[in-house]
């Protein structure tokens, strides 16, 4: 033992020395590295620059190789392709479309540069074609307004004809879309991210390296070593490099210190367990955990090692605890250590409760414990609520905003965090509940259910009172009720005997999930409510001076924009630049209707973008024609008098030369609050308004002086609705809340009253309440994530307890559950899938039908005006857009003729072409109507292409749901939510009912199995109770009958054997005794004869006879001893056994009995020297006696006290009367009708034979306690 301790100590010493060495070495090396870095900086700088340059070049090469590879494949596939017939061309289009998933734009030109075929991506015109001849076989950059491509072109032969194939891969997009479906990373961004340095690329062969000495520039060369662009990046600075060395050294030392601290913990843990005082042990352990957390926090580990969404404060952060939960990952560390602390508290509490002599506790003790515990418990519940509230409010993660089954990484981590936190709270609360339970006076505790009911009601009442007294209660009464109820069920009914098992863990984990998800959904509804409030506040917030400043700021930013300046020099259209500048401006983000226009040095319009058609370009031109030598802003009231228009203008120059002008125009309309003209994909996020709810789900109503002047949303107000809103009772802060039925749907409405320039305004913002299936879906979304996490942990546990799991899975009950679930879930799933597919196809049909109708309306309208009027075609098309309020595009073959939203095509955001597939089907294939889904930047879009005959020509009319609202009764998302919610509930119900049914069906089988085991162990007093009818009842009756017969037969056989044994023994005894008796008789007769004859040899005869008699008596005595030994008990098989395991095995035989059998052990292993069968029989005997004394609650406690193992068996049976107590251990003493009265006496003999003691500790009318003390094994 000493040797072991020494070896262990040596290992630790070695380990700590090694760590110390690392710290010392790093402390010494760091200044050396820094000094070397400074000395060799020039060389190092060159190396770093070279590495960065190589990395960038490799990134380009990778993209180029993709183009080259695709080219080669296509070349092989189409070289023999005929191009004569329409069918041939269709096949060609199909072949090119195979490569759509590579995000490549593919175009095929003949030798006269006529476009022959293309795929479904953007067509590069103008610039692309110009470059074709000059760049054969080379990669080059081609820009198309908002998108820059890496292109590759080469010639190929198709049936002896020469063709050009142009492949282009987008590398840079100048825009971002606010839609969450939009996912794109620019090449410069990905390079900057990978290299941790800002990278800029100029995609032009004419670009020149920068003159900024802080940057390094190099030319990008293509496969022919021709320059195609210039890349520049910030040069590594020596300060940054030295700081990096210092930081890395510090990081290494921090990690080593933490490892050392963990090592200290491991080393000291064994000594900690030897401390006798439990509170001291616990205190030291908790102190250690707290110190560990502080260390992690101080050294910023792991936040400084990991730099992604898990450590991003924007995903979640709170200032609680000076920042110990400042990011999702920090939160995880904190809750894991909290869990460890609470597990320790629970362990020591268990040890304390086990072996506690609570027979003398009274009401005073109960009251002293109950009052503070209940308040502590309610405070903990409040803390949990506050924590979950922080999870919602201090985070940009919206758990319920969109419907997606699987969350992102930060969202998943937060779900894990709240599960662990909930687990800690439930476990700690159970500990408190146990404390209360143990303090209940014993007499009351025996009337358990009644008292628990009273306790439950009292605690619920106190909880309600606690909420009423708080100014801002956390959570709802329902959540509080659920929490208290779950706690009661867990502590008092389920986990008495199963706390430390898998079932205990699963029960607590699911309870924690239920409570935390309830809180999460509650606070999500709170933040949705708040969204209404912030929406109203945001709408009324903007004022004129702010708008003026936004115009000023936009102008100032554009003036300095290098891209804009270079576009002026290129002479290209600046509409794209205008769009980019607008989308990056505050005017867009704040929802201000605005326009940005560019003019050349001669004040000719060269490009622009505006968010609405309300901007007066004439006025802009007039202002521009006046002197514009500096940034100026002019304010003007519009003709209607209710809007202010800000006209800002500024010259754009380079090196004191004016290259052009920019104008920024903004309309300030205090009553404007949405962007009706913008398509959905451009609607600004305005997340402050609607981070929790999509803006398009809101309904907004604007009242001026009691009149509704404008509204937003697809709901109209009736007169009574208006009256209700106007007559709302407002608080002192001029706000009001109410519920209102709009369009037969319940809406939550927030109203804000403001006085604006003498106008009484009321803004009402309404949100439709979530229906049942939506609420279910929200709940189960997170619940299933938690379930998945719990299952993963169970799986890991199962790997360690493989045999037990196999036994569980093979059990009859488990197989029944599995069968029920399979039989019910499979059809359910099939129905769900069918229903989903059916609804989806119906929705598609509906959308298609609607879009076809719209396209036909457009066709009819245009045809009418073309045939009946002399208006020019473009005007007719615009009139059709305005009059019909339908957005459409018109194509003549593949050529774009008109678009209602041409502005987006002009800036390069939307394509101005028919995709290859559509061309192939509609133009070549003459499909009348082609309905397809064509996602735009991952945003799902439905398009109809309708063959229209306008006049004598054929056109294709495209109508899209991107610009035309098409509603379906049940959208795909709503359907998914409905199915997910309802089927989740169905799944839970199925699992519950399957388990209950399986339990009911398998219970008698298990009873019979256990009874069989009991019979096998020798206990023939067992009887299985089962009242239901059927085959099982017959089996049970048969079994019981069989056991009775066996018992009877055994008794008869025992009786017969006893009789035979007695007879045999008597015969033996008689025979044995006869032998010495005969010589004894002869000798006595000889002595009598000698005495009568007065023989001279009387003395010698007397001596001889007495000696013979004495020796025969000895023989008789030996015979008696032998027989006595023969009647002794059978030999014991003494060995080292684990008392906990043996007792548990014995108690398992009573698993199916209708009573509460509680087993508490201080440890999982308590070793004693005993016969395991006898020990098992002893316990079985005691428990069987308790059952036969009508006990309903039996508890068996096991603990270690000094050098002994103590076993206490306590029951609430009828007890033993005082006069019979001294006799209980006597042989053949019994109070039972059919008892032999040897059970306790055998038990006593056995216990004493192993050096222990068994005694009747206590016996009352309703309680009997036996105490067994056995010495521990050495």
């Amino acid at each position, binding site marked *: 033992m000493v040797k072991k301790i020494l070896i262990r100590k040596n290992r630790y010493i070695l380990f700590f020395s090694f760590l110390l060495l690392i710290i010392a070495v790093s402390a010494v090396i760091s200044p050396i590295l820094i000094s070397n870095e400074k000395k060799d900086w020039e060389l190092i700088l060159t190396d770093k620059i070279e590495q960065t340059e190589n990395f960038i070049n490799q990134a380009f090469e990778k993209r180029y190789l993709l183009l080259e590879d695709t080219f080669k494949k296509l070349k092989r596939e189409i070289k023999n392709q005929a191009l004569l017939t329409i069918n041939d061309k269709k096949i060609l289009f199909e072949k090119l479309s195979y490569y759509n998933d590579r995000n490549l734009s593919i175009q095929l030109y003949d030798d006269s540069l006529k476009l022959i075929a293309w795929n479904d991506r953007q067509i590069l015109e103008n610039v692309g074609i110009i470059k074709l001849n000059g760049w054969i076989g080379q990669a080059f950059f081609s820009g198309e307004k908002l998108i820059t491509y890496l292109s590759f072109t080469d010639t190929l032969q198709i049936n002896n004809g020469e063709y050009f194939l142009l492949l282009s891969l987008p590398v840079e997009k100048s825009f971002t879309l606010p839609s969450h479906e939009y996912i794109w990373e620019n090449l410069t961004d990905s390079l900057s991210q990978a290299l941790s340095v800002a990278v800029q690329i100029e995609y032009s062969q004419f670009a020149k390296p920068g003159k900024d000495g*802080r940057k390094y520039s190099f030319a990008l060369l293509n496969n022919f070593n021709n320059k195609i662009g210039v890349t520049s990046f910030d040069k*590594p600075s020596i300060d940054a490099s030295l700081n990096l060395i210092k930081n890395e050294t510090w990081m290494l030392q921090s990690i080593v210190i933490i490892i050392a601290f963990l090592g200290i913990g491991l080393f000291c843990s064994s000594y900690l367990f030897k401390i006798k005082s439990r509170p001291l042990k616990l205190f030291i352990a908790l102190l250690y955990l707290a110190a560990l957390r502080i260390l992690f926090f101080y050294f910023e580990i792991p936040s400084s090692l990991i730099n992604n969404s898990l450590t991003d404060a924007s995903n979640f952060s709170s200032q609680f605890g000076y920042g110990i939960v400042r990011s999702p990952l920090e939160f995880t560390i904190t809750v894991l250590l909290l869990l460890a602390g609470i597990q320790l508290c629970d362990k020591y509490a268990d040890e304390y409760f086990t072996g506690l002599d609570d027979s003398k506790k009274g009401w005073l003790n109960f009251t002293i414990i109950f009052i503070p515990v209940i308040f502590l418990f309610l405070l903990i519940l409040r803390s949990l609520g506050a924590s979950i509230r*922080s999870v919602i409010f201090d985070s*940009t993660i919206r758990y319920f905003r969109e419907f997606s089954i699987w969350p992102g990484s930060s969202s998943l981590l937060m779900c894990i965090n709240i599960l662990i936190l909930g687990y800690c709270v439930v476990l700690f609360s159970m500990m408190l509940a146990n404390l209360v339970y143990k303090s209940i006076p014993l007499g009351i505790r025996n009337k358990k259910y009644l008292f628990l009911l009273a306790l439950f009601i009292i605690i619920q009442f106190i909880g309600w009172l606690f909420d009423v007294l708080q100014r801002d209660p956390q959570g709802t009464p329902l959540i509080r009720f659920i929490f208290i109820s779950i706690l009661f069920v867990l502590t008092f009914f389920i986990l008495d005997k199963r706390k430390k098992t898998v079932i205990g863990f699963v029960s607590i984990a699911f309870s924690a999930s239920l409570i935390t998800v309830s809180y999460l959904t509650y606070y999500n509804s709170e933040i949705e409510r708040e969204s209404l409030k912030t929406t109203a506040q945001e709408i009324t*917030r903007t*004022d004129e001076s*702010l708008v003026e400043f936004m115009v000023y*700021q936009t102008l100032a930013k554009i003036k300095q924009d290098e891209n804009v300046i270079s576009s002026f020099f290129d002479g290209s259209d600046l509409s794209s630049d205008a769009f980019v500048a607008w989308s990056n401006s505050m005017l867009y983000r704040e929802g201000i209707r605005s326009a940005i226009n560019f003019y050349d040095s001669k004040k000719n319009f060269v490009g622009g973008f505006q968010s609405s058609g309300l901007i007066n370009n004439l006025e802009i031109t007039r202002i521009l024609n006046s002197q514009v030598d500096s940034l100026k802003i002019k304010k003007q009231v519009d003709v209607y008098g209710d809007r202010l228009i800000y006209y800002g203008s500024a010259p754009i120059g380079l090196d004191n030369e004016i290259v052009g002008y920019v104008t920024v125009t903004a309309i300030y309309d205090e009553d404007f609050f949405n962007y009706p003209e913008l398509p959905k994909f451009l609607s600004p996020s305005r*997340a*402050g308004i609607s981070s929790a709810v999509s803006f398009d789900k809101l309904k907004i109503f604007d009242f001026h002086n009691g009149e509704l002047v404008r509204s937003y949303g697809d709901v109209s107000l009736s007169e009574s609705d208006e009256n209700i809103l106007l007559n709302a009772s407002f608080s002192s802060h001029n706000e009001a809340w109410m519920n209102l039925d709009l369009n037969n749907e319940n809406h939550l409405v927030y109203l804000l009253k403001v006085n604006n320039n003498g106008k009484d305004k009321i803004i009402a913002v309404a949100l439709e309440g979530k229906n049942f299936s939506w609420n279910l879906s929200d709940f189960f979304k997170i619940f299933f994530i938690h379930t998945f996490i719990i299952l993963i942990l169970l799986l890991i546990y199962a790997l360690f307890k493989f045999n037990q799991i196999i036994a569980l899975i093979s059990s009859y009950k488990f197989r029944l559950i599995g069968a029920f679930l399979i039989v019910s879930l499979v059809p359910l799933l099939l129905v769900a899938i069918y229903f989903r597919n059916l609804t989806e196809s119906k929705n598609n049909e509906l959308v298609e039908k609607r879009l076809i109708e719209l396209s036909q309306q457009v066709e009819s309208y245009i045809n009418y005006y073309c045939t009946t009027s002399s208006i020019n075609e473009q005007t007719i098309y615009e009139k059709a857009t305005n009059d019909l309020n339908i957005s459409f595009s018109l194509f003549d073959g593949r050529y774009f003729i008109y678009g209602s939203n041409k502005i987006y095509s002009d800036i390069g955001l939307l394509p101005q072409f028919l995709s290859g597939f559509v061309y192939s089907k509609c133009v070549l294939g003459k499909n009348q109507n082609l309905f397809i889904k064509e996602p735009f930047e991952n945003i799902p879009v439905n398009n109809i292409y309708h063959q229209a005959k306008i006049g004598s020509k054929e056109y294709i009319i495209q109508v899209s749901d991107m610009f035309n609202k098409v509603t379906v009764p049940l959208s795909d998302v709503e359907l998914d939510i409905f199915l997910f919610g309802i089927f989740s509930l169905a799944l839970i119900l199925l699992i519950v009912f399957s388990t209950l049914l399986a339990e009911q069906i398998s219970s008698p089988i298990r009873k019979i199995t256990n009874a069989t085991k009991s019979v096998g162990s020798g206990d023939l007093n067992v009887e299985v109770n089962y009242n239901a009818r059927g085959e099982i009842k017959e089996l049970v009756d048969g079994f019981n009958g069989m056991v009775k017969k066996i018992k009877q037969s055994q008794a008869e056989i025992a009786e017969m054997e006893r009789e035979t044994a007695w007879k045999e023994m008597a015969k033996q005894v008689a025979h044995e005794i006869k032998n010495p008796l005969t010589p004894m008789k002869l000798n006595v007769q000889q002595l009598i004869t000698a005495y009568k004859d007065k023989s001279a040899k009387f003395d010698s005869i007397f001596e001889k006879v007495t000696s013979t008699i004495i020796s025969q008596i000895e023989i008789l005595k030996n015979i008696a001893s032998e027989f006595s030994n023969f009647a002794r008990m059978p030999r014991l098989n003494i060995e080292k056994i684990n008392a906990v395991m043996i007792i548990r095995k014995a108690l398992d035989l009573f698993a199916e009995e209708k009573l509460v059998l509680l087993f508490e052990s201080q440890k999982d292993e308590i070793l004693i020297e005993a016969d395991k069968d006898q020990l098992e029989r002893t316990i079985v005997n005691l428990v069987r006696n308790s059952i036969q004394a009508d006990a309903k609650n039996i508890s068996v406690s096991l603990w270690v006290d000094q050098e002994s193992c103590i076993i206490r068996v306590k029951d609430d049976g009828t007890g033993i009367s005082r006069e019979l107590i001294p006799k209980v251990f006597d042989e053949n003493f019994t109070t039972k009708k059919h008892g032999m009265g040897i059970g306790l006496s055998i038990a006593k003999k056995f216990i004493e034979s192993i050096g222990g003691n068994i005694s009747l500790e206590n016996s009352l009318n309703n309680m009997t306690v036996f105490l067994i003390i056995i010495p521990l094994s050495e």
Partner: protein
Amino acid sequence: MKSGNSKNRNIFFRYIIFFQIVCAAGLFAQELKGKDPSQIFARIEEGIADGSVDKFSCYFSSKNYISLSNGTAGYYSSNQSYYVIKDFLSICVPSSFKLTNIVTETKSPFASGTIKYTSKGIRKTATVFITLQMVDNQLCISQITIN
């Protein structure tokens, strides 16, 4: 004895009056703290210049729009805003910052200025724009952009 009691009473009353003055001053200062935009801007300027968020974190509202030159952009709670800006200022260490354009005579006071900072050894500049808004009768930050 009488004069002793009277002396104690005087001291007691003076103490009460002094205490009330101090409380009133504190309350008044508290009121001013939430209503004087110039003072708020001054605190923000000082905080950003020193790289210390604590100096102006008390002015964060429950929803703040923050847009930073490191790509962070969005609406954040007061807790999040604290750490988002703190993290930013620890990476982009300010060397100087001055608000040059302050407009307070408006419903939503705003100010802008230029910040010079060092990031990975490289010196850069950015424009800072701050707006305030009235929430529950107190002025709070509604927007900070550093681009």
